[in-house]
């Protein structure tokens, strides 16, 4: 029986006078793989930031199942821009930073931590780059390093913010394959504006455009999307996943 992880109850969020999220209800359980879709500025990233505790809701509440979901058991892959890729830091050090939530302010990484980091680095196909600095890597490789940072602590919930943005196409399949394996161990919430690509991989959709509409399967019909007010591409599942564009 899958345990629930967190639940948002009529939650709202605002930056100053601007309301970004309003009356949002969402419940995520173990092994969920939710695609969070919606237009830019619709509140997708804000949703993640609330789960991470970076912003407090302005109304309603978010309840965590504190027996299994704590701040230390959430893995987070931000949009690539938050770190400075020219900063003098090695791939191994970046991956190790994912263990900081389990450590105090005064921290030494022990041999076990190092071994763990090397395993993650190997799993993500970066074995040759452990000692490289980020500015020697491609955008897709950096994304993998940051994914390594997000999963080294064995989270129960993995939050991905637009992971498709910088993934090179040669890595895209590997990337989603990796997520599929990870999904056996952890729930995944993936923000994307590219419904077409992620529909083949997620189990359910949450469409965020100020309000949130949860769609418990990975298929959404044209009518439903129009009802949600989501000005985005449509998807349809035949035998082969494909994308259907709105009439234009």
């Amino acid at each position, binding site marked *: 029986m899958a345990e629930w992880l967190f639940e948002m109850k009529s939650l709202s969020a605002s930056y100053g006078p601007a309301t970004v999220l309003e009356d949002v209800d969402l419940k995520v359980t173990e092994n969920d793989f939710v695609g969070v879709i919606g237009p830019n500025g619709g509140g997708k990233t804000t949703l993640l930031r609330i789960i*991470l*505790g*970076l912003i407090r809701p302005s109304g309603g509440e978010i309840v965590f199942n504190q027996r299994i979901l704590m*701040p*230390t058991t*959430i893995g*987070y892959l*931000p949009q690539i821009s*938050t*770190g*400075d890729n020219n*900063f*003098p*830091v*090695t791939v191994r*050090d*970046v991956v*190790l*930073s994912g263990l*900081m*939530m389990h*450590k105090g*302010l*005064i*921290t*030494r*990484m022990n041999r076990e931590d190092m071994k763990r980091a090397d395993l993650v680095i190997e799993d993500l196909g970066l074995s040759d780059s452990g*000692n*490289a*600095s980020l*500015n*020697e890597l491609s955008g897709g490789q950096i994304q993998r390093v940051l994914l390594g*940072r997000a999963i080294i602590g064995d989270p129960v919930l993995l939050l991905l913010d637009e992971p498709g943005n910088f993934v090179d196409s040669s890595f895209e399949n590997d990337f989603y394959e990796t997520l599929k394996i990870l999904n056996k161990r952890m729930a995944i919430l993936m923000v994307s504006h590219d419904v077409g690509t992620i529909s083949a991989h997620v189990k359910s959709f949450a469409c965020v455009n100020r309000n949130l509409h949860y769609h418990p399967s990975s298929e959404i019909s044209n009518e439903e999307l129009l009802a949600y007010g989501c000005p985005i591409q449509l998807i349809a599942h035949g035998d082969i996943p494909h994308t259907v564009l709105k009439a234009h």
Partner: protein
Amino acid sequence: MADVSIFHYDFFIKGLLGAIFASITAGLAGTYIVSKKMVFLSGGITHASFGGLGIGYFAGINPVIGAAIFSVLSALGVEYLSVNQKIREDSAIGILWAFGMAVGIIFIYLTPGYSPDLMGYLFGSMLTVTSTDIIALAVMSAVLIVYFTVFYRTILYISFDEVFARTYSKYVNVFKYITTSLVALTIVLNIRMAGVVLVISLLTIPPNIAGLFTKSYTGIVIGSVAAGFAGTATGYAVSYNAGIPVGATIIFTLVVMWVILKAARWLADKLKSGKSINTKY
């Protein structure tokens, strides 16, 4: 005769210790500001501290204390404003920069009785360096070494990716304030030697030299201290023998080092890539 040799010896020791502690403090603080791209901010803090220096003179207290108070307050102020994203940071720094200089000059000229060695503070002078200054630098070196060693990972990860650090730590801002204050104090303590105008280069050139050879943070710190020591020690010696201001000599030496090593690095890379092409074909 004996007096002269004691004077020489004293000057030598002072110069040597000054070079050691200046390069340690500047290496640690410099690697932080260069990696975090805070050079302009640090320049602003430096020049703001000149205001405190002038007020210190006017009030008859140790000008370094006035400068320290001014630099730490302006560092915390700029850091606070940037944390809360209330300002266009570069404009604010530009204003702070000029305002500090203006306040400093006004108060130095208002100071009755004697006119202090303005040139010494602007461009650095070994003659005004006292044993108290050296001791202060030594204490600062110890503080920085302990601070950066104990909190290495925490500081490294906050500097690299502040947003991610906030997801696991409540202390991101605290560390930013502490580290920036330590940088401000490092700058003030090095002003006696390198001068207000030049001290920022003492922090920024060594990490850039070290960065030519390593991409690891610790490597850059160690390389910076070494490069800083080579630069300051050579600078002292040349300045002493040629009778030119020490700050300018140090910076000139460091820049020459940087140019030569950058050329050497470029040449080495060129030869290396040439070689690999040869082995391929």
